[in-house]
């Protein structure tokens, strides 16, 4: 049986364990052999995106040490996966790093492309807004990008359409960035917040009860804004919806 290494990004581990648990349970339901290597910490993206990629060597080595042995590495975060795919390099084990770069998957793409999931047994009778996180969308091509003249597809939508009772709302701007952007959210506080507010408003004005997506960091950002505005609308990682009911 293929062995799956579960890569739970640091902030998901600390703040959003339920997204991690749902991911684990979903993969188990598909009959996979899933392991969470307990020595893992972070992919190094917060540092690299801030211009400190040269400091990420130890992080990268640790990542290789933890995940080299698996057939697939799966993570509920498009952004972290993209970072690993694009920037995981180590001085000592570059061959293993190169291999990892090809076998690391974001959860949605793993379910659709590798597991070819067509019939999820999930139920979530709510109006849901789908946030297309940029790194998952434009980096991992989870959904066709609105800028391109190319046929439409959406892997997260493909999965959400299998969930009983779920009603996906239409957004005015289908794939605009939420403004999280890692350290951008504090370095460029004013613009970051405004972007987040605008994104949330699009979901609210179209009747969302929940906002979901394949990247918890964007959802965390929007949650911060929703909570400050005392909104009843909740954010949920897509794994939690796909695992619901």
């Amino acid at each position: 049986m293929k062995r799956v290494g579960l890569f739970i990004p640091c902030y998901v581990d600390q703040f959003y364990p339920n997204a991690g648990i749902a991911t684990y349970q979903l993969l188990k339901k598909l009959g996979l052999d899933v392991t969470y290597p307990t020595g893992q910490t972070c992919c190094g993206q917060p540092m690299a995106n801030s211009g400190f990629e040269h400091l990420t060597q130890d992080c990268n080595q640790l990542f290789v040490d933890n995940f080299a042995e698996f057939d697939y590495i799966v993570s509920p975060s498009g952004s972290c996966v993209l970072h690993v795919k694009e920037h995981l390099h180590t001085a000592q084990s570059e061959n293993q790093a190169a291999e990892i770069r090809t076998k690391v998957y974001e959860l949605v793409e793993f379910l659709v492309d590798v597991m070819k999931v067509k019939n999820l047994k999930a139920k979530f009778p709510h109006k849901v807004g789908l946030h297309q996180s940029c790194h998952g969308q434009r980096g991992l091509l989870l959904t066709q990008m609105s800028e391109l003249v190319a046929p439409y597809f959406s892997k997260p939508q493909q999965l959400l359409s299998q969930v009983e009772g779920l009603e996906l709302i239409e957004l005015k701007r289908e794939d605009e960035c939420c403004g999280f952007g890692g350290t951008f959210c504090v370095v460029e506080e004013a613009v970051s917040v405004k972007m987040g507010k605008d994104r949330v408003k699009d979901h609210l004005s179209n009747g969302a009860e929940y906002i979901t997506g394949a990247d918890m960091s964007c959802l965390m950002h929007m949650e911060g804004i929703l909570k400050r505005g005392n909104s009843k609308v909740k954010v949920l990682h897509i794994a939690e919806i796909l695992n619901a009911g």
Partner: protein
Amino acid sequence: MNSETKTHPELSDLFNKDEQRVDWHDQTLWWIRQKRDKSAHSIPEWEILREKASEIKNNALSNLADYLVSFEQKALANGIIVHWAADAQEHNEIVHGILQKHGIRKMVKSKSMLTEECHLNEYLEKQGLEVIDSDLGERIVQLAKEPPSHIVLPCIHKKKEEIGDLFHEHLGVPAGTSDPQILTEAARQHLRETFLTRKAALTGVNFAIAETGEFVVCTNEGNADMGAHLADVHIACMGIEKIIPKRKHLGVFLRLLARSATGQPITTYSSHFKKPRAGQEMHLVLVDNGRTIQMGREDFRASLKCIRCGACMNTCPVYRRSGGHSYNYTISGPIGAILAPNLDREKYADLPFASTLCGSCSNVCPVKIDIHQQLYKWRQVIVQEGYATSSKKMSMKIMNYTLSSPSVYRTAGKAGRWVLKYIPFAVNNHFNPWYKQRDMPDAPKESFGEWYKKNVK
């Protein structure tokens, strides 16, 4: 307060003090992005076209020296006087020299981002010469004593009432006028008078053809043509990267340029200047100003492919909510943020960070510049050259220490979730910019790691 000394985050903060205005600015530019989408989607082969444009530009850059020599030779044979300028200073001196030779003290100018980059207007004004910008948007910001905030839409940050006030003060329109039709008509009358009385006209260049020695200038207003065809002396200024190999390549670029910029199928005028008209003197100034250095930077070379359509600005969610002036550079938005650090890493250190790296810019770019990848790479260069602020460097080092060591990370996680203090978006105090307008996530009773340990193993 001098905006020159302020950073992008500080200027964006000021811009965001008026949220309604930010909404207006964002929606105006988004509307242009939508027009671009509609126009692009009417061309089924759009993505192939972008690829061709990219490949032609790659070829042009990789043979630029030869193409420039060929262009010069043909242009000279066509009767155009060709000048070469190593930097902004030399460019300005050349233009000044041409005007001096003819005893001309007043010049009309159409849009040229290169002359903005070289600060030509200020230079000539210091020498006692007068320059009038003839593109309506440029004229408006010139009257307001501001730089353009967008390369294609120079006064996109201005409301019509503010333009009415400017025109009332400078052009004598009745106070309170704000109808764009009336304001444009006032500018038309004012600038027609200018066109008819100036002996020198300066224009930019959109494309220069190595094969034929001609250059192409695109406008909607017709101002470049009005200036050039009425003046005794026509001076055209261009960055050396504007060369394309063959005339037929214009077919590719003219299909992309206006559609990407504003969603128009083509600009109203695409004028091909090959020879001066009888009795006219035509000069062409080829300018380096850092371009040969950028050419040598493998990671950033592709920025020289830019055809200045502005699509990356219109789509950029940051630009739309921070305004062009927040970039403090002639060319704002994503493309400006990858061009500016080539000239001054210290001064423009903040620009590559003024992005979420969402990647929309690279997708709309008609010549497929990997803009967001270059933003990422500039960040690495800026940090390694020591231009990151020291406080940021400190927290990054601590975070790195924490995250690269599992035991410290886990202990820290347990001991009051130590990591929360060092993930920049999660510092739990009121001085943290995160907390100013956003709440923290609730701290769960256990981490995923703890759950896993309890429930799985």
